[in-house]
């Protein structure tokens, strides 16, 4: 089929399909902006992507080829089309036993090793998985480049629900929180029921913990007195004992020993606040992996008329010198596409246009495929967050997420383990000491009872929180998003998307709910929503918000009318919003 030309006029052109870009694409499209969303890769989500096992092998190979296409014309800004160093230090190891060729790539960093360790006799005869099986069952893996979790009351969950994008995906609870301590993996009690059921804690400890968790929900004089001083100091002055102090610092607040008290407390409160909304821990994980989330927002954008084009990039911006605004872009096929706004992922911005040329911080990542869980329990389908405090002074704290096959991210009989920390050295240097301690690999000793690592990958990724998004030498209507950060939450990406949306369209609602499928009625050549369901939902919302919503709604209606003639295609969306207003009136 011959390649079709893209339309040549859009309101917003977005380059890169990471989370923040995808959220903002959905937001713009949802309120009637004509959006062109492109990515030079053949897959969605950029550094937020997830891959099948075989897809990941190809990705690994790609990381070794980095071509830089920097060119400069007098009126042109050439965007970089290379990976511009967001990924480094890729190393792959394969430890499956009965395979002759376990090399994954021929690249120099790649190493393959065979474990010589003998299986102990006592171990039940378990069918071992070999490399060929990993490849054969490769499609059952969905391996995320980024490892994060969703706080049940975090901004991403709120946004998914508010916008109705949530109906494109399903989620699972993180079922338990574990921590590594004195060479053992222990479960962290984090709800009232857990505390009472805990067999590790003494009655005194249980009482102390309950008292602490209750008291820390509100700010007290005592807490304020510790402002600026380490949370650890505050905790140790509470006479909680080593056990509780470890849990509270590393697993509940998830902070380091020198984090100030006010931050430690805020973090503890957020954790507690998120408990019990969906499950027994504060966290959710999307079935099929995090890479689904950007795709869900992209679908919402497309559903409202956004145009999608993978394997397609923007090579230059055409800048009006006088106003310093980007008037159009030239795409990778040489087509001129005019736009009023241009949104771009940081990695596409050429080095000579940046304030700081290279990312200042990196995240260290490891991905392991293992044969059993780090902590056995009645259920094999546990999804665990494991906090690993620094194993020695100067080492980073490591966050580990262990996913079971029912999350649809790994094949039956395996677990997918993600390790993440702030880089001190290379990913291998930072994380392999933790891997050898907690898992069985050729380098580990006396780890017969630990899960065996079948295959593992180490790499560093630029830390989005260490990336400048402002102050680049770019036109005023060009907006830059940083890539993923190393933190556990998605706050940063969602906040960035919302702030840029508000900058461009200060009077529009950010991701209002899309109509429900049952409410879409075809009437002639327009689709209209009766808004019945929305009305119900609106009513269920907090009473205090109602007034505010109405005000915004009025604005929206005016805009919709103004636009109605401009673009026929958008009539459906416009109609729907109109209808919703009607419903709102009725509700009053």
């Amino acid at each position, binding site marked *: 089929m011959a390649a079709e030309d893209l339309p040549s006029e859009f309101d917003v052109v977005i380059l890169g399909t990471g989370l923040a870009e995808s959220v903002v694409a959905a937001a713009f499209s949802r309120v009637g902006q004509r959006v062109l969303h492109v990515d030079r890769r053949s897959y969605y989500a950029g550094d937020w992507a997830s891959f099948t096992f075989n897809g990941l092998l190809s990705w690994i190979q790609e990381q070794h080829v980095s071509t830089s296409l920097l060119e400069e014309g007098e009126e042109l800004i050439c965007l970089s089309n290379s990976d511009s160093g967001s990924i480094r230090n890729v190393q792959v190891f394969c430890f499956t036993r009965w395979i002759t060729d376990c090399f994954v790539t021929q690249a120099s960093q790649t190493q393959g090793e065979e474990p010589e360790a003998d299986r102990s006799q006592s171990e039940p005869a378990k069918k071992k998985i070999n490399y060929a099986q990993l490849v054969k069952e490769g499609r059952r893996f969905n391996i995320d480049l980024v490892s994060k979790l969703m706080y049940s009351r975090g901004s991403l969950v709120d946004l998914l629900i508010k916008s109705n994008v949530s109906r494109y995906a399903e989620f699972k609870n993180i079922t338990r929180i574990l921590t590594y301590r004195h060479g053992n993996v222990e479960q962290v009690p984090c709800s*009232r029921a857990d505390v009472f059921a805990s067999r590790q804690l003494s009655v005194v400890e249980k009482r102390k913990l309950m008292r602490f968790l209750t008291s820390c929900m509100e700010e007290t004089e005592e807490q304020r007195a510790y402002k600026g001083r380490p949370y650890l100091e505050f905790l140790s002055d509470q006479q909680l004992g080593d056990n509780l102090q470890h849990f509270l610092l590393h697993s509940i607040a998830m902070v380091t020993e020198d984090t100030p008290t006010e931050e430690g407390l805020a973090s503890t409160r957020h954790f507690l606040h998120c408990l019990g909304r969906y499950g027994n821990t504060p966290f959710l994980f999307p079935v099929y992996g995090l890479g689904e989330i950007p795709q869900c927002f992209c679908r919402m954008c497309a559903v409202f008329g956004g145009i999608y084009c993978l394997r397609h990039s923007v090579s230059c911006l055409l800048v009006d010198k006088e106003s310093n605004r980007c008037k159009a872009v030239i795409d990778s096929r040489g087509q001129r596409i005019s736009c009023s706004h241009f949104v771009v992922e940081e990695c596409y911005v050429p080095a000579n246009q940046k304030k700081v040329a290279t990312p200042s911080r990196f995240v260290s990542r490891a991905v392991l495929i293992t044969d059993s869980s780090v902590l056995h329990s009645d259920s094999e389908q546990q999804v665990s967050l494991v906090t690993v405090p620094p194993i020695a002074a100067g080492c980073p704290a490591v966050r580990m997420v262990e996913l079971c096959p029912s999350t649809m991210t790994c094949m039956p009989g395996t677990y997918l383990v993600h390790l993440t920390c702030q880089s001190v050295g290379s990913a291998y240097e930072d994380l392999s000491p933790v891997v050898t301690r907690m898992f069985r690999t050729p380098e580990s000793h006396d780890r017969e009872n630990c899960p065996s690592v079948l295959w593992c990958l180490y790499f560093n990724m630029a830390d989005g929180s260490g990336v400048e998004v402002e102050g680049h030498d770019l036109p005023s209507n060009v907006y830059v998003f940083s890539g993923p950060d190393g933190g556990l939450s998605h706050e940063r990406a969602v906040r960035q998307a919302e702030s840029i949306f508000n900058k461009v369209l200060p009077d529009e609602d950010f991701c209002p709910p899309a109509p429900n499928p049952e409410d879409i009625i075809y009437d002639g050549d327009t689709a209209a929503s009766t808004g019945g369901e929305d009305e119900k939902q609106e009513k269920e919302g907090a009473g205090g918000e109602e007034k505010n919503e109405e005000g915004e709604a009025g604005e929206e209606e005016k805009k919709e009318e103004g636009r109605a003639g401009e673009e026929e295609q958008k009539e459906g969306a416009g109609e729907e919003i109109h209808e919703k207003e009607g419903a709102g009136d009725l509700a009053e």
Partner: protein
Amino acid sequence: KMAIRELKVCLLGDTGVGKSSIVCRFVQDHFDHNISPTIGASFLTKTMPCGNELHKFLIWDTAGQERFHSLAPMYYRGSAAAVIVYDITKLDSFHTLKKWVKELKEHGPEDIVVAIAGNKNDLGDIREVPMKEAKEFAESIAAIFIETSARNAVNVEELFQKISKQIPPLENPEGDSNESFKLTRQPAPSTRRCC
């Protein structure tokens, strides 16, 4: 009272073969030459009886993402069935269909029911894809085959009936206490309170 079973069905195929028109015919019994019904419609639903169950189809349209070959894999995640549509007057669209079969084999759900729909069969006089060839191809991959006309309401209902019949009976859910769920405005009331 019959149990309602929600089944995701996704439509695949080249732009312009009539995917949206088939959905529109099935769900609304309506046809329009210039519809753009995907705008604003995340998916559409229609319920059909099947044996002692009710099948509620959640029908996902591509939202045009296929136009520049950029459909996201999340589109066919968890689909119980896929309808791959080609246009009987466009040989190219039949070749694309074969690519989709391959794509589903590699990346789609394992037990997905595949149906092949040769649409626009009201335009028999300019046909490019012989029915026999398409039928044989469908048989070779154990797929449902039917020629449809969204325009004249031919075989659209039948297409979905055939799919309904092929859906395997509900398995007993495994002993996974951590079932997956959808996020909704009103989260399921929890017995746990936070500390």
